[in-house]
């Protein structure tokens, strides 16, 4: 495959033509916030809206996870416009996230904490109202614990469950009611889930966790 040269934040980088910018940046140690990107999928979800970057010649910021790299591309991962969009998307996710870091098994390994740290955005959102989701925690599986109130709807668990698990996870609902659940909307324990734990390993937050990690 053809190799192209581009610059990201002033650094010259070589990459395979057509590869998505997000992966090129990450492989070269340049961090771009992201939650929903999965390497190699045909249609990137482009759902979390955190990976905005500026590309020279483009009228407005674009998502790095959907942007194929081309020869001579000039990228900046930061700009006032990018920072503003990323902050709003991040704050929106936090406003809808059951936040209990001190008691969360993913404390210190949570992607939300990482983004907050990298971009210096406080985890406590002052500007927005809290949008609580009245959803019950699913404790029915011997292997997993699912707390939908922490879920950021990245969709990685759905993908990995199809790829490596039993394919019982999927999206349900529309709009604000969109959530991840099992096929037939039954508790995990009755869903045919084999407890492989792939979903918990890929979950960027503390929504799906393995029970043994709980103790």
């Amino acid at each position, binding site marked *: 495959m053809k190799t192209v040269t581009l610059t990201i934040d002033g650094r010259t980088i070589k990459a395979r033509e057509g590869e998505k910018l997000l992966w090129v940046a990450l492989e070269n140690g340049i961090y771009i916030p992201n939650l929903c990107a999965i390497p190699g999928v045909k249609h990137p979800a482009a759902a979390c*809206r955190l990976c905005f970057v500026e590309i020279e010649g483009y009228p407005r910021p674009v998502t790095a996870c959907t942007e194929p790299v081309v020869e001579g591309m000039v990228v900046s991962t930061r700009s006032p416009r990018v920072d503003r969009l990323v902050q709003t998307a991040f704050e929106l996710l936090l406003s809808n996230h059951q936040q209990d870091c001190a008691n969360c098994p993913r404390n210190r390994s949570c992607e939300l904490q990482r983004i907050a740290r990298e971009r210096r955005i406080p985890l406590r959102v002052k500007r927005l109202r809290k949008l609580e989701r009245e959803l019950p925690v699913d404790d029915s599986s011997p292997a997993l614990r699912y707390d939908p109130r922490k879920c950021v709807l990245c969709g990685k668990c759905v993908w990995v469950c199809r790829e490596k698990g039993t394919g019982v996870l999927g999206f349900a609902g529309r709009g604000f009611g969109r959530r991840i659940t099992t096929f037939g909307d039954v508790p995990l324990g009755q869903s045919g889930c084999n407890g492989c734990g792939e979903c918990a390993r890929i979950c960027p937050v503390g929504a799906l966790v393995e029970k043994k990690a709980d103790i």
Partner: protein
Amino acid sequence: MSRDKVIKENFTKLQQKSRAAWESLRERPLILVGTATCGRAAGALEILKVIKEELAKSGLEASVLEVGCMGHCYAEPLVTVYKPGFPPICYGYVTEGIAARLVQDFLGGDDPCLEFALAALEANDMVPAFTDFPRGMIEKNIILDKCGLIDPENIEHYIALGGYAALAGALGRDPGQVLEEIKASGLRGRGGAGFPTGRKWETCRLAPGEEKYVICNADEGDPGAFMDRAILESNPHQVLEGLAIAAYTVGARQGYFYIRAEYPLAVARVKKAIEQARQAGLLGTNILGSGFDFDVDVFQGSGAFVCGEETALIASMEGEPGLPRHRPPFPATAGLRGKPTVINNVKTLSYVPHIVERGARWLRETGTDGSPGTAVFALAGKVINTGLAEVPMGTTLREVVYDVGSGIPGGKAFKAVQIGGPSGGCLPESALDMPIDFDSLSQAGAMMGSGGMVILDEDDCMVEIARFFLDFTQKESCGKCTMCRLGTRQMLDILEAITRGQGKPGDIELLLELAEDVKAGSLCGLGKTAPNPVLSTIRYFRDEYEAHIKERRCPALMCQSLIAYYILPEKCERSCDACVGSCPVEAIYTNEDRIKVIDQQKCVKCASCLEACPPQYKAVIKLSPPELVNEMGA
């Protein structure tokens, strides 16, 4: 014989047969009954039955046809009578009694019953024609021209009046020439965004690949919009012809109509049209002997608003959940099943036969430089003539509201026009003289959108209007992307608080910040346009927002939480008990002066007393903020 000679010959045969059928219809009196969805809702099927019964009873010879919508939906049911010796006359608000009289007195006698006539279809010296009214002078029918005048289920009518000549003509030309014509016409997509149709077709035509598709987007999900439905129900062949020309131009052999399942009559009529076109050799293999193969199927959409968005539409046709995808790639390069695909709106495709038949220059004679042709609006809300209107681009809002729509009912004052549905915006009185086209509307913060136009008067609260439209988009958001799922929800919460009198200082600024970010950061067009109603109402009616937040006052007296009902003692006719009887919660009592008083604690603000108070007293009024009641008593 050369290829284009064969095409011409085949088509001429079709045309002659169709014209003969059409002309034989005119040999005796002809009655047209509008039985599109709008007519049916007003009882057109009963009218049709009465006419048929009366004809049978009287033994009079006449043909009866079911036709589509003429756009005068306010006056449905509509009946048009052609009788030799008379101009064709259209009757509105037809009741069963009027229908019977039209048969008995007009067809049976020679009394055209002019007291029920709406207008004649052609200028004459007996009855004023539609074109004699201010409305008729402004309207210009291109894509609605045959609607309501032909039987949509009869392909011969369409062909007799010039239909499919454009397809026959196009097939005789090189696809590249057809493309040039569309490009030169400057036609822009009527599905909302106004993207140049020629450019879209060119991209698809040049895209590599043998297999290509054309799709007609008839998902029409905007609340209050019904022009696509009206066109499909009234003249489906026009759209089908446009789709076939698109296919020939880009090199597609398969086309689809994506129609929402809530439009059963449109689905049935399109299916029938496809069937008839196949039988006439206008679809299928070797169309008119040209060697061009093209066929069409109907796909019924599940009805979610977002499925009208082209990438979601494609996902849903592929059997996936109807969620939008990131663009690029655009469908014109990688669309249905990854193949290059043209997706056009019903109205866009309706212009195509006219352009191919009459030329790019002809289209440009109508409309503005940047937006050639006409715009079709669905007028609704506080306007006298609701219904469909086709006017040249560049017509002013004032002409549409006051000449076409006949103004605001009840002597109320105009406040704003909401254009473009939930992705559009609200324009104030100062915009009334603006010539409307794609560009002027988006500069003013609204959008052509689907062409929905809701007229608002002094009784409409602009914060509540913004809340209403955002409530729609928020509920219709698919929830896939963060900005739209949560951003619209945050904005809606703020708007709800403001309309309840719980707005806080800074809320307007926060709304503006969120609105801009949701616009710039959403994945698809739904989120990218959802903030428009909020942005435009803040831009033009910020004082109303401020009154709600700072004074807990709703200037339009619309927001329930911010008003109180009050009975003016000096106006109250003491012995009348109309309000007392109307109150569902017994909140009105008679005080020691025999004056009626509302117990504000009990009042549920249902407005029954206001409606019950006889007009000669008009003693019940609304007050905002509600605390004003205390001052009134003092």
